[in-house]
């Protein structure tokens, strides 16, 4: 499983009612981008949203597989 797959799996289980997209623009499986649209973000600040995402993928960073994840979070009404 690639790191991108791992991140997508973790994010999808953390935000089951949301839409998760993970991209690997440099095709290095290291510098990834994730966009998550979820109602869980409604009314939350950017920092709160990012913390939710960080929690979902916490061990991916810890194990040093993931060096950089560019995160975009949107609530459904912001899309």
């Amino acid at each position, binding site marked *: 499983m690639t790191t991108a797959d791992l991140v997508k799996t973790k994010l999808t289980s953390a935000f089951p009612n949301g839409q998760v997209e993970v991209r690997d623009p440099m095709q290095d499986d290291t510098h990834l981008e994730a966009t998550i649209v979820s109602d869980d973000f409604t009314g939350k600040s*950017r*920092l709160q949203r*990012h*913390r939710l995402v*960080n929690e979902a993928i*916490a061990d991916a*960073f*810890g194990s040093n597989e993931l060096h*950089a994840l*560019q*995160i*975009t979070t949107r609530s459904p009404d912001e899309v």
Partner: protein
Amino acid sequence: MDILDKISNMVNEAPVVLFMKGEPEFPMCGFSARVVQVLNKIGVEYTAYNVLEDEDIRQGIKEFANWPTIPQLYVNGEFIGGCDIVLEMFEAGELQTLFKENGVANSNAA
């Protein structure tokens, strides 16, 4: 003094504090470079710490902010976020507002 106390002092020493990889003139990472660019564009004064020079700081700030990555921006002792958040706030005009509200010195004051 333990590392978390040290970091607490560091983030409260100046109105705007940035933990980054490298120096503002020579960033060692694209994300740190982008935050520096934004701060320079707005024209705020800030204190930058190069975490590559101190492994204790580098790991300590992750625990202190409960945030896994670098760069990390603090305004008046409060953690604001990393590169993604700083860029989004800048594009939305929120960063400039944050600095004004916190009375941060701005050499490009509009």
